[in-house]
Each structure stands twice: as C-alpha cells, then as structure tokens.
C-alpha cells in the first residue's frame, strides 16, 4: 500500500519556522511519522507554498503514517478541519496507462555529475587530487545546475527515461518579420512545462560542513509513455536530494484549457 498525506503547517509557530527553513529538520519530522526503521522504505515529501501563509506538506509513504507530532508542534491542533489528510494512493496508480495525460508538479534538485569540474572548490580539488595520487577511481562531483535554462534542460533530457513526455506547447505565430530564421530557430520546440520556483538551500549537516541544494519546481503537462517506468519514478522519486524535499512527482487532473 502507498499513502499520500497532506499536512497543514501553521507558519507562525516556532517549530514550523525551523521546519520550513531547514530541509534537514523537515526530513527529521517526516521520518518521525514512519513506524519502521529509517531505511525500511523510501519516503518522499514536498513543501508547497502556493500561499506562503498557508504552506502544505505533501508526503508519500509506503506504510500508513502518523503525523500527530507535526500537527501538535507545527499545525493548528485545536482547529477544525482535517489537520493531516492521509489517502490511499492506489486509485491514482490504477489510472497509470500509456497515453494518459496529467498535470504535474515536481520539486527536484537538478545536478550533473562530473569528475572534471571547470572550477573546483578547494575541498573538491583536494579530493580529486588525492584520488589521482592514489591512482583510484573517484566518484564524480555532483554539481547543481544553477540557471533556469540548465534546470529545464535537465528535466526535458530525462523525461523519456522516466516513462513520460512533455507535449509541445501551443505557441501563437510570431508577428510578421519576427519568425525565427533557420539560424536562430531552436531545434527543440517549447514544451508544456515551466519553472514556478527556484531556491538555494544551505543548511548544516552533522558537525562539519554544509549541504547546499539548488532546487527548481516544475509544473506542466505530461503524457505517459511507459507505465512501468513511470510508476517506478512516481513511487521512488526523481533525481537526488530526495530526503530534502526533492523528487516527489504529484499528478493532478488537467484543467480545461482553450487548446
């Protein structure tokens, strides 16, 4: 079984300020709602701040979770309404089929892996140098994409592998004289996706060093091409930094558009 939860967060409370500011603290709070051991299952979560005064936390878990502690510390425990909605995810998984179209939202951490960075930090340079001296293979450095263009490109390059495509967007014809010439025409047509938020997180981890994350929130349309691969990504997440609120792909019905 899989469950999707939505928790209302009251941003005025001291505990929620810590959770909202620090993905590591939020990871701890989310992990605290799972009964199993930390490694027993892949938990995905995402913080949606469409309305920054009423943020919502979405969490996808395999086992049935309990969010009493988050509601008590960071919610409105005495208020009416549903503090934490927990729903079975099976109805959605049953709808996954080739050709189906959905609206999606994804907060991801687009990165590239390279062993030959253009400009390594002193720590990275020392690590690469040590590996070179010892003559061993080192893992490539994970370098975050920091421009919107690179982040979008990161997503579009990988969608086929994840079992979906993003259809081309409907574009009005350009004004006379402004049509792209052969030299300037982009080989890739514009796609039905946009970046709605980008953020740089930097927070302490352990005693030494900090984690730096560049996240981007993508919203758009998708069309499923490979149901198995798609379900796999839906349940196990997309891209790195899944503990820190990245990689949860959520689907919603397509709204009526004028296309």
């Amino acid at each position: 079984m899989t469950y999707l939860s939505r928790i209302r967060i009251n941003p005025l409370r001291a505990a929620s300020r810590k959770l909202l500011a620090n993905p590591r603290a939020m990871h701890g709070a989310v992990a605290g709602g799972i009964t199993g051991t930390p490694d027993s299952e892949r938990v995905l979560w995402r913080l949606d701040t469409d309305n920054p005064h009423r943020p919502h936390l979405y969490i996808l878990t395999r086992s049935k979770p309990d969010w009493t502690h988050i509601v008590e510390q960071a919610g409105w425990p005495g208020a009416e309404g549903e503090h934490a909605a927990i729903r079975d995810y099976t109805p959605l998984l049953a709808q996954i089929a080739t050709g189906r179209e959905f609206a999606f939202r994804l907060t991801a951490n687009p990165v590239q892996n390279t062993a030959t960075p253009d400009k390594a930090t002193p720590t990275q340079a020392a690590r690469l140098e040590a590996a070179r001296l010892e003559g061993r293979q080192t893992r490539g450095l994970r370098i975050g994409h920091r421009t919107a263009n690179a982040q979008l490109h990161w997503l579009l390059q990988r969608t086929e592998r994840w079992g979906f495509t993003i259809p081309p967007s409907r574009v009005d014809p350009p004004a006379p004289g402004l049509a792209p010439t052969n030299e300037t025409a982009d080989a890739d047509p514009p796609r039905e996706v946009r970046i709605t938020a980008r953020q740089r997180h930097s927070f302490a981890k352990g005693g030494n060093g900090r984690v730096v994350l560049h996240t981007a929130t993508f919203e758009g349309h998708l069309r499923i091409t490979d149901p198995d691969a798609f379900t796999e990504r839906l349940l196990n997440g997309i891209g790195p930094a899944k503990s820190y609120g990245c990689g949860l792909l959520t689907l919603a019905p397509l709204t009526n558009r004028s296309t």
Partner: protein
Amino acid sequence: MTSTPPHPTHTRPAERHDPLPDGADHGGEEAVLLLRLAGPLQSWGDRSVFNRRETRPEPTKSGVLGLLAAAEGRAREDRLDDLTQLRLGIRVDQPGTLLRDYHTVSDYRGRPLLQAGVSAKGRQKPTSPAKNTHITIRYYLQDAVFVAALAGPAPLLRTLDTAVRHPAYPLALGRRSCPPTQPVSLGLRDTSDLRQALEAEPWQAARHVRNEQGRRNSYPTHVDLSATIEDPDGDDVRHDVPQSFHPRSRSYTSRRVRHLWIPTPTGFTTPTNNDQPRQPSAGHDPFALLGW
C-alpha cells in the same frame, strides 16, 4: 470639512454657466453617447511640449471633448463647462502600435530659426549661435480602434450626436493630421452607466484582427478588453480635463479614473468548448485524482 481629496469635476462651483436651455436640472434623464475612434493614425498627447510630442495609449478627455467641440463648431474661446461635465469611458478594441515620426523643421529661406526669447520690440530673436534645423519627434498610434462612451444629460448628447454626424469643422483624432474613419458616432444608448453601455457594444476591431484572434482562441463568444472609466473613487488620476481651449489660456485639471476589463461580445457564433468565462487556476491538487 471632510478630508476627501478635492475632485475637480465634482467641486465645480454651483453657479457654473450652462448654455443648455433646459439647464442641468432636467429630471435626471441621462444617456450614453458612443463614439468609434478609429483611423490610420491617432495621437493623444496630454502633457507634451516643445519638440517631443508623445501620445497616450488611449484617447484623452481633452482630445475627445475637442473633437466634439469641433463638430459643434465652437470657437476656441468658447466655454466648455457643459462638455467637461460628461463622464468618459474608453474601451480599447484594438490597441494599435506606436509610430515614431522623425521630423525636421527649418526655414525655407535658409534663415536661422527663432528662439523663445523676445527683443525689446517684442519680436522673437534668432537663435545664436544660428540653429537652422529643429528636430522634432512625434508619436502616433497606428491602426488603433477605441470606443469612447460619454455619459451625461440626454439632450446635450443628442445635440452632440447630430453634430458629430454633421460636423462644422473637420474632425481629428487628437491631431489635425489624423482624420477618423467613418462612422464616428455609434449613437445614443438609454443608460447612464458607462460600463453597461460599453459591455453591450460589439467588438469594433477590424475584421482581420477579429478573425485572427478568433482563430487563435477557438472563436470565443466574448473577449476581455481593457477599459478606463471615469470614477470619483478610481485609483488613478488623469490630468487631461480641459478648462478652456483658449489659445492664450489653455489649462487643464485632473479627474479620477478606474481601469477594468470589459467582457465584450465578439459576434462569433461558432459553438466551442471555450464559452464559459476563464477560471483562475485552482493550483495543483494531487488529491483530486484520489477519489476525493
């Protein structure tokens, strides 16, 4: 005294001159006169002076009232009080594009141009050092279409309607070199509400513009057109109410306006699935697919 900001068109002295025979107290009979302001070129300046003559993206009240005064055959020295009391609403049916006209001025005899200062005899002095050419920049709107609605006493508007159809002086869209296309007057409407009158009026854009827009948006029955309506509680101020067009004492006051979108019938009757007004995006709700 209350602390409300003074509103020029509403704080006019009660003993104002009113040339209408029936006066201002005519039993509240109000109407709206609709004008179609369209032409190859329009230019609606409100504050431009000297060599740079700009245009507003929409007709100004002074421009529209000037057109009406010209249609009635008023002299520049004549009073305008009855016209300035009319409330003006402008709907942008076709915004048009901006044209920048590079213009030079020189004396055909090759003499230097005159400066602003005058000699002891009261004559303008030549520029020194000699300046033979002025460069002036004039802005125009090309290919724009507006619907102007004037609300006020019905008898006055009836006179103006007749005058616009049989103008005493040639009509112009903000500048003498910008003649309007016909028809200018769309007639009177039996309402005193500017917004209501503008909402009922069909889209006046050129047919090729309407067809192009319709093709792109699958022929909607309504389009949203931007509009500016005179409103004492409006949030914006326009400094374009003429007090007098007298050549030696031109002066303007301001009025309050409100900006809004007016759903306008397009005239397309093709059945589409786009008839309902556009809903604001409801955001992303992952629970919508979970049977809830």
